[in-house]
């Protein structure tokens, strides 16, 4: 390449691309400069100053994350002086940190802890006062603990740049600076979508999920109730990472076996209810298409998206599918269809969902999702919580003998599997809608144009000569964009899939923390998780939801047909505009951001 330049790192000559930062150039040459606020998917903050290096001819140290390389530049990453400065900077962070590592949620998986070790901080010079704030426990999904915050700003950036929610911002000055929701109101009253991406990117435990493991452990010992778990597709694709397995290992059988060992009487598969969702959603779409209903129809599986939509896009409420999410459909079936089947009072059932998601905790508490006055889902735990419970119970997860899910909510098609990846719901819906509409089976079922991690994907297909245009958005920031397009061009799309998290559920806010050699939301890890689900789909003989014999039986024995009165009662819901703190309807743009 012609645009290569010569630089020296620590006295050694390298040829590197000229249009990059010192950090990236050093990475390419095998020097991993320590870093903290830097995140490859987010804008450059330059705040932590941990990545400083010396450049000959520059008076001050430069932050390698934002300083561009130049021809002839002589960089030093590891002199005694720069090591000491970096060490002192990390010590300053520790000085204002609770340092209760042994009792911390992130113990052993904390970037600050790792950094302090790597910097060689073995004694302290500058200790002084520490900040003290109350934890914010108000949200059903996310706990905010400003004491642990080191102000790297990753949460603020992901919430605004990727999610477009802007629930968080820095407030006050100097040592008193704190990350908080608008007006420092409780998190629960804020615009937070509960997606949990702040947890994913937080290097410490300033954001954690609301933890239900202790409560669940207690209930699992209760012999008077029937304990039932359901497991979301993307949990099996990621949970291995919490046990130091490489990303992309499908741990479905190990997970089913472990949950039984933890004390669950039945372990069901949310992929089954995903097939059910497709039956209802595809039918709803066709009904809207044929009877002139509101289009484009927008999917409703993602709970963070649901909250976001009610807050920021109430004008499009009618476009959103009334279908409940697979979790809530599954919960509803557990407390009705399955309870009937085994002859148990549904009040005696504990319905637990193991999800990749923190927003599902919020969803489970939504009153309109109740079934016969009962919560459809009693407890939601994340992939992380499930992994911790398995470890805490002393189960040898990695070497566990795989087991199957329990009938009758077990069997799933490949369509239900790919729900966990962005584009998957759309692909699954098309597989079924095509056949319901045309009476013919769609043969070319892997729809490449809506796969992959492009923020906004478009696709089209022809059904009986009618062109159907679809769009897929993942990450709420992309959702805002596609909806702006809908407002401008209402006829551009017929059907839109929106997932709240980057990559879809596989990138959910409840997935395992990044290990010591990766970064949160690493693109490669997400791709490996996606591949695990696509492979599973390909290995199945049944790849269309409507071909799932258990689904057919469910309709035959219980629900009648899709969109029947019973289906409406149990599987559909409604939405209402919400106006949390920080929303001003007059100038929606200012709230939504870019």
């Amino acid at each position, binding site marked *: 390449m012609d645009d290569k330049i010569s630089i020296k790192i620590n006295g050694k000559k390298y040829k590197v691309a000229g249009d990059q930062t010192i950090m990236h150039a050093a990475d390419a040459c095998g020097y991993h400069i320590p870093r903290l606020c830097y995140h490859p998917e987010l804008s450059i903050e330059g705040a932590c100053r941990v990545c400083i290096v010396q450049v000959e001819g520059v008076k001050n140290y430069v932050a390698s994350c934002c300083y561009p390389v130049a021809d002839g530049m002589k960089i030093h990453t590891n002199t005694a002086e720069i090591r000491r400065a970096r060490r002192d900077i990390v010590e300053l962070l520790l000085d*204002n940190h609770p340092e209760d590592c042994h009792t911390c949620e992130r113990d052993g998986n904390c970037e600050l802890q790792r950094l302090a070790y790597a910097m060689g901080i073995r004694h302290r010079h500058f200790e002084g*006062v520490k900040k003290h704030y109350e934890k914010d426990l108000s949200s059903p999904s996310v706990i905010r603990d400003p004491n642990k915050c080191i102000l790297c700003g990753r949460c603020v950036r992901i919430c605004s740049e990727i999610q477009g929610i802007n629930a968080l911002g*820095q407030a006050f000055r100097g*040592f008193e600076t704190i990350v908080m929701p608008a007006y420092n109101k409780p998190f629960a009253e804020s615009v937070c979508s509960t997606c949990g991406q702040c947890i994913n990117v937080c290097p410490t435990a300033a954001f954690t999920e609301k933890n239900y493991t202790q409560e669940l452990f207690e209930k699992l010992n209760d012999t008077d109730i029937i304990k039932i778990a359901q497991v979301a597709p993307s949990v099996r694709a990621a949970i291995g990472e919490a046990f130091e397995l490489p990303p992309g290992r499908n741990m479905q059988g190990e997970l089913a076996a472990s949950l039984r060992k933890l004390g669950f009487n039945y372990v069901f598969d949310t992929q089954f209810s995903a097939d059910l969702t497709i039956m209802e959603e595809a039918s709803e779409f066709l009904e809207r298409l044929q009877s002139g209903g509101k289009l484009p129809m927008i999917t409703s599986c993602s709970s963070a998206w649901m909250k976001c939509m009610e807050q920021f896009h109430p004008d499009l409420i009618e476009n959103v599918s009334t279908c409940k999410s697979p979790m809530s459909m599954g919960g509803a079936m557990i407390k009705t269809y399955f309870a009937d089947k085994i002859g148990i009072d549904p009040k005696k059932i504990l319905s637990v969902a193991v999800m990749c998601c923190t927003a599902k905790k919020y969803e489970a508490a939504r009153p309109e999702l109740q079934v016969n006055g009962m919560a459809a889902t009693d407890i939601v735990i994340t992939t992380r919580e499930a992994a911790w419970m398995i470890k805490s119970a002393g189960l040898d997860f990695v070497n566990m003998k795989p087991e199957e899910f329990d009938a009758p909510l077990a069997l799933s098609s490949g369509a239900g599997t790919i729900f966990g990846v962005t584009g998957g719901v759309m692909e699954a819906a098309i597989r079924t809608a095509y056949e319901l509409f045309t009476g013919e089976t769609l043969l070319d079922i892997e729809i490449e144009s809506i796969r992959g991690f492009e923020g906004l994907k478009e696709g089209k297909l022809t059904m009986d000569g009618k062109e159907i245009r679809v769009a897929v958005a993942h990450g709420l920031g992309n959702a805002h964009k596609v909806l702006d397009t809908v407002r401008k061009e209402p006829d551009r799309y017929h059907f839109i899939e929106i997932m709240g998290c980057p990559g879809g559920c596989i990138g959910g806010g409840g997935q395992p923390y990044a290990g010591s050699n990766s970064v949160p939301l690493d693109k490669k890890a997400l791709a490996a998780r996606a591949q695990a689900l696509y492979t599973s789909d390909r290995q199945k003989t049944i790849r269309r939801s409507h071909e799932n014999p258990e689904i057919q039986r469910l309709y035959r024995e219980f629900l009648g047909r899709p969109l029947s009165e019973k289906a409406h009662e149990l599987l559909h819901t409604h939405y209402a505009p919400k106006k949390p703190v920080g929303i001003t309807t007059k100038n929606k743009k200012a709230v939504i951001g870019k």
Partner: protein
Amino acid sequence: MAYEYAITICDGTGCIQKGVRNLRQALDDELAKHQLTDKVKINLSGCLGMCDKGPVIVVNPGYTIYGNLVKDDITEIVTEHLIKGNPIARLAIQEDFMYNRFFRVFGDAKFFGKQMRIALRNCGIIDPDSIDDYLALRGYEALAKVLTDMTPADVVEEVKKSGLRGRGGAGFPTGLKWDFTAKQQANEKFVICNADEGDPGAFMDRSAIEGDPHTVLEGMIIGGYAIGAKKGMIYIRAEYPLAIKRLEKAIKQARANGLLGNNILETDFNFDIEIRLGAGAFVCGEETALIRSIEGRRGMPRPRPPYPSVSGLFGKPTLINNVETWANIPVVIMDGAEWFKTIGTEKSKGTKVFALAGKVVNTGLIEVPMGTTLRQIVYDIGGGIPNGKQFKAVQTGGPSGGCLPADYLDTPVDYESLAKAGSIMGSGGMIVIDEDSCMVDIAKFFLEFTQNESCGKCTPCREGTRRMFEILTRITEGKGKAGDIENLQRLGNMIIKSSLCGLGQSAPNPVLSTIKNFREEYEEHIHNKKCRAGVCANLISYTITDKCIGCGACKRVCPTNAITGSAKNKHTINQDKCVKCGMCFETCKFDAITKL
């Protein structure tokens, strides 16, 4: 109508506070009483710079400056000076020589003797509310010259040649900045005037705008023409209501006169200026933080590059200069770079405005040629240290500047020399410190300000300055320990070299410079638990000497009953009970109590 006298009344903030507006009323009444209203023209001006002598008025012809006026003085001035023609020596501020290239209007005040006014050339002379006053003194002539005789590239070249450097503190060559911004290809560019003056005790920019708002506008319009911008913004703190009012009025006048808006001076050049108010965060004086603040976001600096000249306001190329820099532009254009270059030193051309404050006889606003020594400023212009006290240090550059001791008094004021001496030019704060001040306490004072004003973004500044402040607090409370000085230096040097923006990169300066120049004071505080200036309360002890006659006055005023002793016998102070309030020291008529 022939006026016999013109009286210029200083209507700057300092004089307003000292009641100049009541004097104005008195003057009007007095003139009316003597039927002189149509014989005496009254002008209002911006700050004359002699704030400690306010209220100030100037009577012309004769250039008589009257200061420290009270209401009765007005009667005397009218009857004696205006009617009988005898200036009143008692009230006049009289010194010998006046050196000013532009206007010999100030009269014989030594205060002005070493000064040279370029940025402030009209301040105190014209009525800032009158565009006619500004036009009369060659106002907007530079703009006319630029629009008719010069290409944008010519303008950039002229500014480059002049050697003008940014007056906001860092001293970046202004012409280069203009050049970079001019060369950017973009559909939109911006010009910004940084009037977010936040240094405690600094009022250079405020006075410049209050005294002569049109100069700033003219400079910005020229800048807009040079770089190809159509829009200018003035970012000024909301705490400057008078300056804002005058700017608003000036903008309105400029628009009405075809100097702002479309087709300026009937050319095809369009340019307009808007005002944006800052909420008073010190860090918003940093250019990238200021830009974010204008954009409606939290004013936090961002890493550079890209510099604002490439990606500034709303991501567009932006030319951002400080008030004083803008005020220099019309002069550079009007009188040419060749002339401008003759003033100042080799690397620092032109003049610099300072807000002279602290323990000095004449406090106020001054403008001196670069290269003037600190000694000339402190002693010739400032009139030396009052009350026969000893000079101890001069602190330049605002809260982030260094403290220079007497050895450095012959340092010429320019960017390089001040940096070499261990301080900075900064935006122009200058505080004189005398022997009554404790250098550790001074360092603590400045650091307290900067650590409070840190935006909280980068670790070294947010956490590091707080730790330094804690160590300093400890030392001044007598709890300092061995290693504190070394830790202050270690932190200070790291913060300077690692911080994201200029605030952190300079915040430790007062501490490091006082350790360098007054290390013995730190050591006394830490090891001997003594504060030689008697400032740090915890390190003072009061003792009663043999001079005590046992009158009991000290015992009666002591609020904690720490003093015991019977009548006519020597009293003693119980050090455990003493709270060092100093009441006994103040009360003793026999000089029998010592403070150590």
